[in-house]
């Protein structure tokens, strides 16, 4: 499988590394050249020596997506820090380039829910975090000190 990860922040770089370790072809696109350091961190070899690809470019530029290999991608992960950038670029990958699997990071639960209803595979870390906090509060309240 060819995995294209857009946005090499905490989420994007971690998913890119684990996908590469799982044996997939992985390409990463980020507008900040320094974000490459996150891909090397904690690894025995550099990202490229391990077989990864890295392209510097802006997510919503078609040329950057093409350079990063969007046409060959089987899985597209939109994980920049901007919800609206992720939602836009995911729809471009899906509707323009026909990428079969598109996964989108959306921090805002409301936007995440609505776009999920529209057929985007969204993942909302805030919602997951809130649920865990609620569970923890519930457990703490019912535990004797």
């Amino acid at each position: 499988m060819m995995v294209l990860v857009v946005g090499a922040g905490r989420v994007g770089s971690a998913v890119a590394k684990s996908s590469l370790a799982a044996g997939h072809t992985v390409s990463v696109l980020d507008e900040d050249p320094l974000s490459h350091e996150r891909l090397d961190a904690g690894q025995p070899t550099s990202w490229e020596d391990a077989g990864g690809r890295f392209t510097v470019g802006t997510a919503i530029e078609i040329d950057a997506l093409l350079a990063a290999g969007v046409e060959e991608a089987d899985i597209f992960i939109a994980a920049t820090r901007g919800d609206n950038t992720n939602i836009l670029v995911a729809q471009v990958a899906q509707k323009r380039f026909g990428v079969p699997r598109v996964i989108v990071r959306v921090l805002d639960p409301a936007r995440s829910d609505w776009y999920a209803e529209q057929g985007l595979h969204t993942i909302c870390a805030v919602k997951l975090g809130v649920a865990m906090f609620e569970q923890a509060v519930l457990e703490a309240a019912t535990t004797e000190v």
Partner: protein
Amino acid sequence: MYVIVVGGGKVGLNLARELIRNQQEVTLVEQDRRAYLRIEQELEHAVQYGDGTELWVLERAGIQRADLVVAVTGDDEDNILICQVAKEKYLCERIIARCNNPRNLQHFKLLGIQPAVSATDLILNLIEHEVPGHGLVHLLDLPDEKLEIIEVEVIEGAPAAGRRVADIELPDGSLIISVLPRGKAGFVPKPDTIIAPGDEVLVVLDPGLEPYIMAQFSPNGRPD
């Protein structure tokens, strides 16, 4: 008419001002706290503070009853998202989006966000109109109707130069609707009107016919 304008920069603020002056009901949404406070001095209750890409902010502004949503922030991805949810989630009938970077126009088109207004493109068209020798100017595009109106300069030595309108070999689906002689008033030509070099002509045509039309008005079939 109830209009929601998202983005209180120069475009959004002036738009809101004009709409209010024309007796329309307007809510302007601005996410920068300082800009909001400044605008609030002038527009009072007609401006709200918040990120217009958050659904609850749009709902607080009353998007369910809006007749028109105008997204004019400085970020194209924000304008696209605002218009997409306005249209598809809140079923707002009319939207207008600002496109900051003309290269992003293709994204607006892909997602059906129309009309998208690009100031850069508007100014570029005006420059083309003003700069002499720049053969062809698009005056009007009606993509839904599949019609365009272009303005073409007649170059010395072109097949059409010095000929009667009836004798110019234009493809089916095109028609000369006006002749603008240099320095004189334009007029609607008759079949025996002579087209002179230096004249400009307005042609209505089906999209895609430009090369055939240019072939008649330029010596080498190209502008200049």
